[in-house]
């Protein structure tokens, strides 16, 4: 593993160093450099500090672990790999993500998991330990979003979640009494079978951040799924 001190380093030269390294990379004193790990595969990055926007965009198999908070657009259009954040993340996380996993110990900002998609065995997973802002999972077309709301007094998700959702599913560790969902989704209390289907991701989350799995599971959960894969079918008339 090589260690890079990112202090006073521009994003382009930092990213070039990462790309050209044949070894795993540790970045210390990271402060706002954007696009770290864009399109990266077959490498592990450890980041200490606060990386900038679009961390792990188009990530293609690399693993990134961040000891700190992360800014906006983490894992944009991510294809494969893992991003583990020991902190909170900004807005628009996992936009159009199509594979791989993102684990966040803290909270997520607005517009997390928009238009995540899936194809056969390729299923992206976004797990948020805390709460998320508004517009979670808009246009969700596939994949799994899990929000745990650990130690949170707030609503587990903000306003207007799941608008235009037409695939995938969402598991929220809350009864979601105070959250209003749109007409295009079905919500119900999650069963043990529902949780069993995602148990590997919850286990992995607990392992990353040292939580007790049974304590996490032992809570009321809500399952959200779309009521149609073809939400606009009835909207048009041929002209």
């Amino acid at each position: 593993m090589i260690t890079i001190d990112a202090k006073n380093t521009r994003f382009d030269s930092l990213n070039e160093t990462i790309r050209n390294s044949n070894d795993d990379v540790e970045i210390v004193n990271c402060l706002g450099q954007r696009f770290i790990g864009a399109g990266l595969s077959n490498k592990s990055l450890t980041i200490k500090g606060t990386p900038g926007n679009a961390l792990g965009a188009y990530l293609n198999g690399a693993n990134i672990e961040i000891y700190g908070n992360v800014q906006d657009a983490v894992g944009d259009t991510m294809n494969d790999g893992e991003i583990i954040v020991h902190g909170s993340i900004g807005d628009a996380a996992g936009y159009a993500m199509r594979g791989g996993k993102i684990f966040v110990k803290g909270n997520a900002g607005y517009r997390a998991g928009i238009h995540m998609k899936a194809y056969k065995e390729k299923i992206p997973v976004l797990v948020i330990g805390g709460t998320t802002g508004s517009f979670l999972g808009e246009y969700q077309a596939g994949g799994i979003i899990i929000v745990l709301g650990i130690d949170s007094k707030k609503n587990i998700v903000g306003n207007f979640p799941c608008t235009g959702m037409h695939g995938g599913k969402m598991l929220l560790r809350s009864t979601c009494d105070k959250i209003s969902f749109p007409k295009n989704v079905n919500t119900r209390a999650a069963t043990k079978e529902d949780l069993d289907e995602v148990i590997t991701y919850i286990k992995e989350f607990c392992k990353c951040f040292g939580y007790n799995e049974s304590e996490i599971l032992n809570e009321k959960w809500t399952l959200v799924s779309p009521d149609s894969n073809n939400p606009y079918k009835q909207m048009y008339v041929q002209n």
Partner: protein
Amino acid sequence: MSIDYIYSEFEVVRNQNRCTNCRACEKQCANGVHYFDNDKKIMLADESKCVNCQRCVSFCPTHALKIVKSDCSFRENANWSEQTIKEIYKQANSGGVLLSSMGNPNKLPVYFDRILINASQVTNPSIDPLREPMETKVFLGKKPSSIKRDENGEIINNLTPQLELSIPVMFAAMSYGSVSYNTHKSLAMAASKLGILYNTGEGGLHEDFYVYGDNTIVQVASGRFGVHEKYLEAGKAIEIKMGQGAKPGIGGHLPGTKIVGDVSRTRMIPEGSDAISPAPHHDIYSIEDLRQLVYSLKEATKYKKPIIVKVATVHNIAAIASGIARSGADIIAIDGFRGGTGAAPTRIRDNVGIPVELALAAVDKRLRAEGIRNNISLIVGGSIRSAADVVKAIALGADACYIGTAALLALGCHLCRACQIGKCNWGIATQNPELVKRLDPELGSKRLINLMTAWKHEIKEFMGSMGINSIEALRGNRLMLRGIGLNQKELDILGISHAGE
């Protein structure tokens, strides 16, 4: 009958003296118009299903068929056109948003047809392109503002990646899904033989076509379908689609019925699920956000690919283009309101956006005024119909043109404007395997090559007649243009004089 019954728009006229009951028309029509009547022993037609694609007419071996516009019409009314009345019936019956395809067909000004091109007479002699070399090659991308030299006086290559085109025409974005595998294959093969580029559109790139990568623009749109690192690496350039001329400001919905087999795999969404491209990119709310997407793509592809940002021509297009030129993008593509589409709400298609000629002139003028024209290249599309349109567009300030509809016409499209139904009898806008195989990619690519070769000759003729031997010398050369029948405001926006001035 009911209130909603509308007599068929078209009538099938069959010359029974010529018809041999060979049933070729029946086989050719995916809409099920033609059928054999066993009692009468003749071919009949259910005209209500006809879209006037002319497939049966073309394939009738005895030329027994023609399709004509029905003369059964409502009482004439200059305000309430027949089309408008029919649309109201359709909506009153269904409650649906009207869905159409291809470009705006309405009688709105086509400025290209109101612009005339200059030629040399006596002075500045014209050039014969058949005997003198004429350069139609163009390079798209940022041009450096200064020459830098090293300590030995050698020029440092500070040129960012460029696209080299043998002629300033490329095939516009049409997604795999909206058009067929064989359409993409025809475009890809033709582009690679011609030394130009085609554009994947937003549906990803089928694995069979990675071999044409050097002649491919890969598109990234709001739905990010089929976008991954290998896809970004595959193309020669990456286009961020912010908007489309046929439907500015709205997204796209490819119906689940078209998401089958390879389309599903290429887009990376399950079979039968709608492919929804949201209206905006939900991570782009500003030029700064656009800059972020531009640079994340550059970082992911190691700064080896020029980034194109495609927008629809809307009212403030000049200011928008100025922002894009400052976003780090290498090329802007502007798509006019007559641009085609595989499906768009009729009202949006016919009422939103502005003509590309005015937009192009405004953008070029603005970028020049701000001293940033060389920071960025300019592609125009929607709709470029001929070599004359190409020449006029370049003289108005474009570096290159996109053609979509013209390319499809070369492949056999008859502009019946029923792409959204998915039963294209010409094998273009369909995913039905039986229909797709009607388009032979070898023949299709040959016809595209023919079209582009013909345009290249015509472009050279225009250039020669103007006494210009390099297409780059024509770019923004508005002195070569004159308006005819345009008012002063229009002339001012186009930056040209009236004929006779």
